[in-house]
């Protein structure tokens, strides 16, 4: 059982804000902290880790990590933390990176084996690819046999394929080691795939809380599907108008009416949806997903 109730004033980009979060987390759950950049999600993660101080309470399995009188330093919190930029020690090889945290050779061998990294154990971090570095960072985070695994945007530096590999690996470790995991992310796809509970932060406040299914799949009306996107351009071609909308990593062309062309502007966030037609779904070349 993890109980968090903290407050911390933050200096925002535009204005100062108060980060306020109250959370109850069951053991074994996988929580995603969702929100735009500057919403306070990474700060919340850092407060849980003990890297930043705050007012309030953090209680993990009846152990006080933070309250009015007490501040347990990060060294004494049972935490595995994975940084966005891996933060491997450049002066140590892979094995040494793991053993520095905890001199347990069997555990290190086991973790590297599970990630298929055994062959790399004598290499230095500099010689590894981004995906390999992140997997080493995950193994290193688990060397303390943590109760709580904290992930700070773990996939942002990786390409699609590596992302999927790492997602599977995180799921495997989460189950294998009976972890409670908190992940900061701004990708609905990652959250939907991994998390069983999510919290959305905006300007330091929790604005939504629930299961990713409820929060992410909601469509507002009778649409068959709806996609969020951004207008990147409006082109006039002969008699018709075309809006270019960027959705995820794709750009789609949508034919719009003259009236719509007047209302819509470059840079607007929009929802693209359809009611009348059933969308077609077709499998792409299979190895894209393997």
């Amino acid at each position: 059982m993890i109980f968090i109730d903290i407050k911390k004033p933050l200096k925002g980009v535009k204005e100062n804000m108060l980060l306020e979060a109250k959370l109850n987390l069951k053991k074994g759950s996988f929580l995603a902290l969702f929100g735009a950049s500057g919403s306070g999600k990474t700060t919340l993660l850092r407060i849980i880790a003990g890297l930043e101080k705050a007012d309030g309470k953090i209680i993990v399995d009846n152990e006080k990590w933070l309250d009015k009188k007490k501040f347990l330093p990060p060294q004494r919190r049972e935490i595995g933390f994975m940084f966005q930029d891996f933060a491997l020690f450049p002066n140590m090889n892979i094995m040494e990176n793991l053993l520095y945290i905890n001199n347990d050779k069997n555990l290190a061998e086991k973790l590297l084996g599970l990630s298929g990294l055994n062959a790399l154990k004598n290499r230095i971090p500099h010689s590894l690819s981004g995906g390999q570095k992140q997997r080493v960072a995950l193994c290193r985070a688990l060397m303390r046999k943590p109760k709580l695994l904290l992930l700070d945007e773990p996939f942002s530096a990786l390409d699609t394929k590596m992302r999927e590999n790492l997602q599977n690996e995180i799921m495997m470790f989460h189950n294998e080691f009976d972890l409670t995991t908190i992940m900061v992310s701004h990708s609905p796809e990652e959250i939907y795939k991994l998390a069983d509970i999510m919290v959305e932060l905006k300007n330091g406040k929790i604005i939504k809380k629930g299961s990713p299914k409820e929060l992410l799949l909601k469509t507002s009306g009778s649409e068959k599907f709806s996609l969020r996107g951004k207008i990147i351009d409006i082109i006039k071609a002969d008699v018709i108008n075309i809006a270019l909308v960027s959705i995820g990593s794709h750009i789609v062309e949508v034919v719009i009416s003259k009236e719509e062309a007047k209302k819509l502007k470059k840079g607007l966030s929009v929802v693209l949806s359809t009611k009348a037609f059933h969308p077609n779904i077709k499998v792409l070349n299979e190895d894209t997903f393997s």
Partner: protein
Amino acid sequence: MNFDFTPFILSFKLAFIVTLFLLIIGIPYAWYLSVTKSKIKPFLEALTALPIVLPPSVLGFYLLVFLAPDSFIGKIANDLFNIKLVFSFPGLVVASMIYSFPFMIQPIQSGFESINKNIIEASYLGGKGKFITLFKVILPNIKPSLLTAIIITFAHTVGEFGVVLMVGGSIPGKTEVASVAIYDYVENLEYHKAHIYSAILLVISFLVLFSVYYINYKQKRKYDFY
């Protein structure tokens, strides 16, 4: 012609002691400068850099005044440790430490400032305290900066002239270091000896600088310091 190596031995002994002491003081001081958000930081940085811009004669003059036997510091040194701080070797050490101070501090400070803060936090999150983190993570990852600081400080101490002349005088075998010896030879029109001493200092200085740049070049190719 019998050749006297004493000034060189004195120069290197002085440089070795000064470098060692400055390294011990320099690491915590440079660390403090690199992390502090205090308002006195610019003041301390200016004070640290002062010996770079100050004429050695000015520095030497003040050191003479403040280290003299009848001065406060001079008295303490004399009464407590029975050490004379002017026209003596311990005096040269103190003066050289002040003169070479910025050459030790600045490279180490910039090394500390450029290190990826996440690897320090990763060490804390791995349960390691500040002391172990300093020796196992921070210092090994600023090796090029440390090496630069050590070698430049050493070379700069060997190469100093004005301050050692003023604070040390030129007592053969005690405070007459190589650079001062050259000056004495030229004054006595012993150009032959001045030539040899100068050539030796020139070659050593070049080799020292070359080794710094070469080692840093190799290090940078070996590691990617993020």
